[in-house]
C-alpha cells in the first residue's frame, strides 16, 4: 500500500485533509518517522491512529480533557491581552524590549488558535473574551501595572511562571490523547522560554548577575527554591508554593513547591556526583507542576469584578 498515494486520493474528495492533520508537514513527519517500523501488520493501527486524530475529534472530548484545555485557553487569553495592552501603553516597554514582548504576544496568539481548534464547540466561549474581562491590577494590588515598568514585568513573571506550572499540571489528564499531550507540553516549553526572558529583563539584562538575597527583584532565568516568593510577595507566593496534594509516593501524581529536591524518590542534591550542589541549586534543575484548582485560585485575582466564567 502506498501511503502517500492514499493521502492524495483522499485529498481529491476532501481538499481539507491536510488541515485535519496538524499541518502538511506533520502528516509527513508521522509517516516519515514511521517508515522503518511500518509493516503489513502495523499498517491498520497506523492508519486508524492517524485518522482518529484527523477526523475523530468531531466527537466530544472527555470532560476532564476539555476542562484542562479550557483552563489553558483562559490563561492564554490572560497573557495575550496583558502583553497586547502593555505594547499599546505609551512609555511602558522600552524600545529594546519591544520585539521580545511582541514575540511573546504572538506566541500566545498561536496557542489560542491551537487550543480553540482542539476544543471546537467545547471552548468556554465561542468568541474571544474582551480585554475588559480581565483586571490586571489584581483587584487593586498592582494599580500602576500599565504605567510602571517594574510592576509590569513583575506581574508578567507571575503569569509566565503560573503558565509553565499549569501546563505541566494538566499533563496527567491529557495522557490518553497523545496529540493533545504533545501540543500542551510543547506550549509549556515555549512558556518556559518566555519565563527565562522575562526574568532576564527583570534582573537588568541577560548578562546581569542575579542576587540570591534578592531574587524578588533580580531572579535567575530558572526558579531557585521558591524564588523568595516571586516578584510581589505575598500575592505571588502561591505561584511557587505547593499545590494539592503536595506530597505523594514516587509514582503518585502530586504537586510539591518549586523548592522540591526529590525526583523519582531520589534526593537529587545528594545523588549528584562531581560538584557540591546546594539545596537551592538542586531545586532549580527540575520545574514542578501545579494542580488546576491552585492555578485557578491564583488566576481569579486577575478576572474583572463580577466575571464568573473565567477560572471557574
Amino acid at each position, binding site marked *: 500500500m502506498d501511503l502517500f498515494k492514499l493521502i492524495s486520493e483522499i485529498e481529491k474528495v476532501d481538499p481539507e485533509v491536510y488541515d485535519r492533520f496538524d499541518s502538511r508537514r506533520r502528516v509527513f513527519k508521522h509517516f516519515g518517522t514511521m517508515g*522503518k517500523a511500518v*509493516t503489513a501488520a502495523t499498517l491498520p493501527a497506523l492508519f486508524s491512529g492517524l485518522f482518529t486524530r484527523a477526523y475523530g475529534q468531531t466527537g466530544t472530548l472527555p470532560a476532564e480533557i476539555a476542562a484542562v484545555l479550557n483552563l489553558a485557553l483562559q490563561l492564554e487569553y490572560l497573557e495575550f491581552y496583558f502583553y497586547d495592552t502593555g505594547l499599546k501603553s505609551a512609555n511602558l516597554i522600552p524600545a529594546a524590549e519591544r520585539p521580545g514582548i511582541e514575540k511573546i504576544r504572538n506566541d500566545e496568539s498561536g496557542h489560542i488558535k491551537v487550543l480553540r481548534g482542539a476544543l471546537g464547540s467545547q471552548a468556554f466561549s465561542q468568541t474571544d473574551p474582551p480585554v475588559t474581562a480581565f483586571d490586571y491590577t489584581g483587584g487593586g494590588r498592582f494599580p500602576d501595572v500599565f504605567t510602571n515598568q517594574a510592576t509590569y514585568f513583575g506581574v508578567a513573571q507571575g503569569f509566565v511562571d503560573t503558565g509553565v506550572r499549569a501546563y505541566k499540571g494538566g499533563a496527567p489528564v491529557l495522557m490518553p490523547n497523545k496529540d493533545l499531550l504533545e501540543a500542551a507540553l510543547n506550549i509549556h516549553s515555549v512558556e518556559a522560554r518566555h519565563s527565562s526572558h522575562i526574568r532576564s529583563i527583570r534582573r537588568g539584562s*541577560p548578562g546581569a548577575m542575579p542576587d540570591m538575597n534578592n531574587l524578588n527583584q533580580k531572579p535567575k532565568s530558572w526558579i531557585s527554591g521558591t524564588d523568595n516568593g516571586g516578584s510581589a510577595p505575598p500575592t505571588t507566593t502561591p505561584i511557587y508554593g505547593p499545590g494539592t496534594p503536595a506530597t505523594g*509516593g514516587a509514582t503518585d501524581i502530586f504537586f510539591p513547591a518549586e523548592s522540591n529536591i526529590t525526583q*523519582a524518590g531520589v534526593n537529587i542534591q545528594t545523588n549528584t556526583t562531581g560538584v557540591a550542589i546546594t539545596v537551592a541549586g538542586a531545586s532549580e534543575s527540575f520545574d514542578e507542576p501545579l494542580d488546576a484548582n491552585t492555578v485557578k485560585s491564583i488566576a481569579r485575582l486577575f478576572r474583572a469584578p463580577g466575571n464568573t466564567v473565567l477560572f471557574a
Partner: protein
Amino acid sequence: MSDAQSAFRPQPEVPPRRTFLRQAGAFTAASLLLAACGDDDDPEPTPAPTSFELPTGDAGLVSYLFLLERFSADFYQRVLATPAPDLSAADLAVLRDIYRHELMHRDLLASVIKENSLVSDLGVSSLVAFEFNYGTFALTSRQGVLAAARTIEDLGAAALCGAVQLFSSAVYIQLVTRLTATESRHSAAVRDLLQPGSFAAAEVVPNTGADAGFGLALAPAAVLTELSKYTALPITGNGLPTT
C-alpha cells in the same frame, strides 16, 4: 534501595513475546523496504554498520535522554575547566548553573536506569563510557562557547519536546516534563546571552503557519543523527517508539 525508590518501577521489562514480535516486525519491514526498491532486485547483503544501538521502549528513551544529558554535562565541564578569557562573570554564573543542572539530570537518569534495571550491566557501562568529541566547536572565545552552548541547548530542548510523549509510562512522562521546562529555560537564557531577544527566535519557535508559537520538536532519530556527529561510534535507536 529504599521502598520509595523501588516503587519507581512504572513499566515491567518488555516481555519476551513482545520483543520477539518487535524483531519479527523489523525483519518484515526490511524485506518490504527492499521489495519496494524495484530497480534494485539484487541487493548485496551488507554487514551491519558499527554503531551503538539503544535499548527499545521506555528503557531506550531513558537511555537516550541520559546520553543527551551526558553530552551537555561533559560539554560544560570542558568549557568551565578552561573558560574562554572574554566570558564575563555573569556568563560564567549562567554556564555554571546549567552545568550543575545537567549533572543533576544525568545522575538522576542514571539512578532511574540502575534502580529499575532498565538496561543490562553491559549496556550501563557502554552508556557511561561513551566519549564525546567537541572538536568542531570553537571554545576559546565567548562567542564560540555561547554559540556551541546554543546548539547543544536547542538540541536538548527540541529532543525533550519530541520525546516526552513517546513514553508509555505515565510516571516517566511526568518526570520528563519536569526536565523539559528547565532545558527550555537553558536554551532561552543562552540565546539571550548570545543575541539579546533571541530566546524564542523563529528557528526554535516558528512565527507563522500551523506551528506558530510551537517549540521545535525533534524525533529521537533526528536527534541521534545530530548527536552522532560528536561521537566516534554512531548512536542508533531503531527500537525507540516513534508515536
